[in-house]
């Protein structure tokens, strides 16, 4: 990005007296006095002291201190960002200790979540399952749409259309999650219950994915609403990376007689691939951590899912539903451990995505995720 970088220490090296000058002069004067070269008398002292004080004031004025102070001030703020990240993980881990002592690593493959005080057994599998299934559904639905939109915006749309349509898609990312939840509850829910799910049962029932009653508040609906929510993320990153492909790539393909689509498929998409994958993974991260919309449509069922039409509970919705209304204290600890699992998964996903996207764009992308 910045081919010409200024060296951080440039202006102070040369003409201005610094602390080194001051101390060097002081030492030199002291030595001269010791050797008897400079008479230790009033005038000589005064002259020397005056230069020393001048040097010192100049030095203080000149900013090494303010420079260091500013560096420290901004540095502390920067480190605070790191501290927040570490503190979140540390506090969750601390809270999860009781559960970890009770279940050990068995928590990670425990299939039963039973907060009944007489049972009090917790395993995270149902929630990890639901988190992964809803996110996978969301990706399955959102990625083709997002890619299509990104290709449309970069190669097909007339220039005047790109700004407004791109902004409109990004606005989808700005709508608060709870509003998606309300919309899901009152618009999507009846649609899924009355139309989509019976249709799926009728024509795709043989696949075994759509067993049970169509109630409209289930894993499938959560996946659909997550898809709507992550489309802007995937689309924005894909659009930016496709737009970052040097136009010579595409022009070369076009000059060989490729059609628009062929040039996109053969020149643009392979070049932008890692950025697009990064965008998809970012979308995955967002889908896994999304809470309010999911809580409102997923139906809250703490068991391993049997069908896409059964109620579920993602890790995020588990925290929202049960952290405060718990039955046993061990449950709180188990919820925090589940939260830690979610945090680690989503950090991992985000790190991978950011690395991929950074490599392509070398600047970060969207201002809003």
């Amino acid at each position, binding site marked *: *990005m910045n081919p*010409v*970088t*200024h060296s951080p220490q440039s202006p102070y090296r040369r003409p201005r007296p610094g602390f080194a000058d001051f101390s060097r002069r002081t030492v030199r004067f002291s030595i001269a006095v010791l050797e008897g070269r400079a008479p230790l008398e009033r005038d000589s002292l005064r002259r020397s002291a005056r230069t020393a004080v001048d040097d010192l004031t100049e030095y203080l004025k000149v900013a090494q201190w*303010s420079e260091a102070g*500013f*560096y420290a001030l*901004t540095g502390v*703020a*920067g*480190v605070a*960002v*790191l501290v927040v*990240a570490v503190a*979140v993980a540390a506090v*969750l881990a*601390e*809270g999860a200790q009781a559960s970890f002592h009770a279940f050990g690593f068995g928590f990670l493959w425990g299939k039963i979540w039973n907060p009944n005080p007489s049972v009090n057994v917790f395993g995270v599998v149902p929630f990890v399952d639901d988190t992964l299934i809803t996110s996978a559904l969301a990706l399955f639905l959102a990625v083709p*749409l997002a890619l*299509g*939109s990104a*290709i*449309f*915006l970069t190669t*097909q749309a007339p220039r005047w259309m790109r*700004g407004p*349509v791109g*902004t409109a898609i990004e*606005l*989808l990312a*700005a*709508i*608060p*999650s*709870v*509003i998606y*939840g*309300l*919309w899901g509850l009152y618009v999507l829910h009846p649609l899924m219950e009355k139309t989509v799910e019976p249709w799926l049962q009728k024509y795709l029932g043989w696949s075994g994915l759509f067993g049970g009653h169509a109630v409209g508040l289930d894993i499938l609906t959560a996946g659909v609403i997550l898809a709507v929510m992550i*489309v802007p993320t995937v*689309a924005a990153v894909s659009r930016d990376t496709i737009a970052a492909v040097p136009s010579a790539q595409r022009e070369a393909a076009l000059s060989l007689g490729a*059609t*628009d689509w062929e040039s996109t498929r053969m020149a643009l998409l392979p070049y932008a691939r890692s950025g697009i994958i990064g965008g998809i993974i970012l979308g995955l991260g967002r889908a896994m*951590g999304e*809470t*309010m919309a999911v809580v409102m449509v997923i139906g809250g069922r703490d068991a391993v899912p049997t069908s896409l039409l059964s109620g579920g509970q993602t890790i995020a919705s588990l925290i*929202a539903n049960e*952290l405060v209304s718990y039955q046993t204290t061990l449950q709180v600890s188990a919820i925090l451990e589940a*939260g830690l699992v979610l*945090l680690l998964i*989503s*950090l991992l996903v*985000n*790190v991978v*995505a*950011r690395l991929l996207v950074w490599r392509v764009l070398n600047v*970060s992308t969207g*201002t*809003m*995720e």
Partner: protein
Amino acid sequence: MSGPPPRPPVSKFDRTSRRLVMNYVVAGLCGASVLVVLYPLLDIVYTAFIQGGGVLFQAGFLTDTQPPPCSAISCNTVGIGPDIEGTLIMVGLASLIAVPLGTFAAIFASEYKGRGLGRAISFTADVLTGMPSIIVGAFVYTYFVLYAPTIELSPQVIIPSAIAGALALAIIMLPIIVRTTEEALRIVPNSIREAALALGIPKWKSTLRIVFVTSLPGALTGILLAVMRAAGEAAPILFTAAGSPYYAQNLNQPTAALPLLIYTFALSPSSNWLKVAWGATLFLLIMVLTANIIARLMIHRMAVRMGRI
């Protein structure tokens, strides 16, 4: 000796037309996918207007307290006053924490990026923007409920309260502010920095008075986006502020907020509460969408001014 079998005669026109048809099919699909993607946006805005329009423009809706639950047709549907107030209080407090911290962190990450720490900070901020917001809520809740009482110097905060909610929102806002401000600083041309340094201006002063001021529109945009994000978040304040039907008397008590109101009322069976939820949704939507459009225009204008477009 037989040569290779003769190729079936494919007329050039056929192949070309097949490719062209493919081209148009894909173009059509891409255009259609944009329509599908934009449909929810339009439908959300439309539904919010239909369901909440009548309530929002009622006298007193923005200032009165919430109505008692009721399911008759002519139920009272005023007010979301405490929720607007609570959101303002918490987002304001959160901004007091997150804006200076985030701005300075961004300056560090952008202007001292020669050292590895700057890069680490901007990467961490980037990753933090992807942290699930419910985790932030759980973190603040757990810290103040379980650990603050056991740590001697730690501030003791009552949970749920406006202070705890504001802290959670500040954690949501911090990485967004860092990222957008850093980006705004980064598109300030280097020649401006070099000109300032060549005049003998100390680096900190040139950073603060010249580089940062030049990037101010971008930084303000980032703050605006972060504020709007915080105003719409329900997950971090679900436990930490918890909602309340009354106006806040002080900062150390359960506090109402717009997203919490929408969440609670959406799941309630009484019809007037649902109407209020839609009214609040419309209000929040108008705020968020307007702010975002303004922010995009500001980003665009700044990019143009910096000669990037």
